[in-house]
């Protein structure tokens, strides 16, 4: 087992990882920018090293500084957290070349899943259903036209190197195709340095459902059920729940088993998430995230499995030690992402936290690096807290969430607490009736 882990991240996820390390008796090294010197992830680490100025490219994305910090602190492994360098294959390689354990998959798997076309091909090879579309990049307009009529309109044109909705265009019919292709290519080139695009069938009002998987270095893999992350605003998840209110037990078991099989087929190791669009009983692979996910706690709540502990354990070479039959699902869990943002403009709201009181009591978990008097710097992500609630069933969970949201006090900065308070009262949410466009429609209507 690792003796000392450097956590190459900040905020609540750095704290989450530090907590897992402490629970396992592993010493921790925090790295931080000058803007984060007083932050909770630094306070709760055994050691800390300042690695650069506020700008992320000079600190949390500074590979050399992080490796130097690991060297001088005598760490034997590096946890990349999520965001920043977590899905940077070259960083993973450097970490291993310098003799540290990398708490994540191999650089090859990171690279494979980072290339959206290669990932889709790998998914097909591993037996996962994908959205019907082109097999690879589409260069000629004529080829695009032929493929689009095969796939059936509307079609979606997506950047091969892409993500986050950039370089994505919808074409409703043949007359619309040329325009959509040229806009998508231009955006792809501007954002990802390559104008390669591919075609996919456009799905109307699907749900975003993802399967958590966990694999060791010895070929064992299990799935930990699904999460429904359909409530999104501008491709950013806002509230997630597990299990999905839409799936039947049979669908859950089927997609879970196929995800675990796929992971075994490609020889993946560590934690990972396979994301699907789901509509009318059919799943379509969209991508795989080769890291811990922000919303991992809801899976922890319904399975009782500490995902970060398991991730560290398998990264150290330990065998999983249990099979799929040992994974039991109990109750329902919901996570609200609490962002420091203006409730109307959604602009980030950095500043000094003048009041902080987290909810407590049964079934309530808060993962947050905030404290009374802490400072939310303007340089990074606006996610400042995750409120995670667990109860025996979905409605009890929603009632408990309502109670916990009522107890939560964050003063001095703007947050989206009120958005969550309103959202969970909506009739469609109460009924579990929503798709990936629902939240934006709802926000326009309220």
């Amino acid at each position, binding site marked *: 087992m690792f003796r000392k882990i450097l956590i190459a991240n900040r905020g609540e996820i750095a704290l989450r990882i*530090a907590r897992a390390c*402490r629970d396992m*008796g*592993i*010493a*921790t*090294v925090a790295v931080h920018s*000058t803007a984060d*010197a*007083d932050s*909770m992830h*630094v*306070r*709760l*680490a*055994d*050691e*800390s*090293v*300042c*690695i*650069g*100025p506020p700008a992320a490219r000079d*600190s949390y994305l500074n590979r*050399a*500084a992080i*490796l*130097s*910090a690991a*060297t*001088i*602190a*005598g760490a034997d492994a590096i946890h990349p957290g999520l965001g920043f360098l977590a899905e940077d294959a070259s960083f993973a390689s450097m970490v291993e070349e310098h003799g540290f354990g990398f708490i994540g998959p191999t650089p090859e798997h990171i690279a494979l899943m980072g290339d959206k076309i290669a990932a889709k091909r790998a998914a097909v090879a591993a037996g996962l259903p994908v959205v019907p579309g082109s097999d690879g990049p589409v260069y000629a307009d004529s080829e695009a036209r032929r493929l689009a009529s095969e796939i059936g309109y509307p079609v979606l044109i997506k950047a091969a190197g892409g993500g986050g909705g950039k370089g994505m265009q919808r074409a409703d019919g043949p007359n619309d195709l040329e325009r959509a292709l040229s806009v998508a290519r231009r955006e792809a080139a501007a954002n990802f340095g390559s104008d390669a695009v591919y075609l996919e069938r456009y799905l109307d009002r699907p749900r975003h459902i993802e399967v958590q998987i966990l694999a060791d270095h010895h070929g064992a893999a299990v799935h930990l059920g699904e999460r429904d992350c359909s409530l999104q605003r501008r491709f950013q998840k806002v509230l997630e729940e597990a299990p999905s209110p839409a799936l039947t037990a049979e669908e859950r078991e089927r997609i879970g088993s196929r995800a675990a099989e796929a992971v075994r087929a490609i020889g993946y190791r560590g934690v990972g998430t396979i994301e699907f669009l789901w509509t009318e009983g059919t799943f379509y692979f969209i991508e795989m995230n080769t890291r811990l996910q922000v919303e991992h706690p809801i899976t922890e709540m319904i399975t009782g499995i500490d995902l970060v502990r398991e991730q560290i354990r398998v990264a150290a070479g330990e065998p999983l030690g249990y099979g799929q039959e040992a994974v039991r699902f109990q109750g329902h869990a919901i996570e609200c992402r609490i962002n420091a943002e203006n409730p109307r403009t959604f602009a980030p709201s950095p500043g000094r936290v003048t009041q902080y009181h987290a909810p407590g009591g049964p079934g309530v978990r808060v993962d947050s690096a905030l*404290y009374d008097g802490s400072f939310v710097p303007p340089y990074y992500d606006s996610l400042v807290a995750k409120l995670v609630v667990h109860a025996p069933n979905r409605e009890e969970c929603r009632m408990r969430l309502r109670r916990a949201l009522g107890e939560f006090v964050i003063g001095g900065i703007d947050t989206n607490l009120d958005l969550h308070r309103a959202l969970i009262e909506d009739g469609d949410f109460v009924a579990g009736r929503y798709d990936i466009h629902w939240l934006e429609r709802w926000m326009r209507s309220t």
Partner: protein
Amino acid sequence: MTTKFDVDADMIRRLASLIDETGLTEIEYDDGTRKIRVARALAPVAAQVASAAPQPMQSGDQPQMQPAPQVVDAGHPGAVTAPMVGTAYLQPDPQAPQFVNVGDRVEKGDTLLIIEAMKVMNQIPSPRSGTVRQILVTNGHPVEYGEVLMIID
């Protein structure tokens, strides 16, 4: 910035002995116009229990590098701070003399020390011409980004 900063060594010694006597890890004193902070980082123990209570930032390796009470103020007008994290070397090689010594006159651009990061030896030039008043790093020991290396004014 104050126009002139006078390091009161006696005061620092007095605060250091107060730290010894009281078992504190940090003393900060602010008289409205000036602020002084002295800290002594504690050696980490394996799997010690971290506390969320406010405490001086500490690196587990600092006790080795700074056994004496550490007076760090990156806002000092003469401060030369580390532009990167790494290991500090005061000599070009183990047999050679130090690049600079306390009391030396240096010109802007003169090499003050080397910081090794990722096997690369980075020569750190003096940001200004002046006299080396203090050398705050120990040869062969790690430094963090932004840490005060020397005072030159």
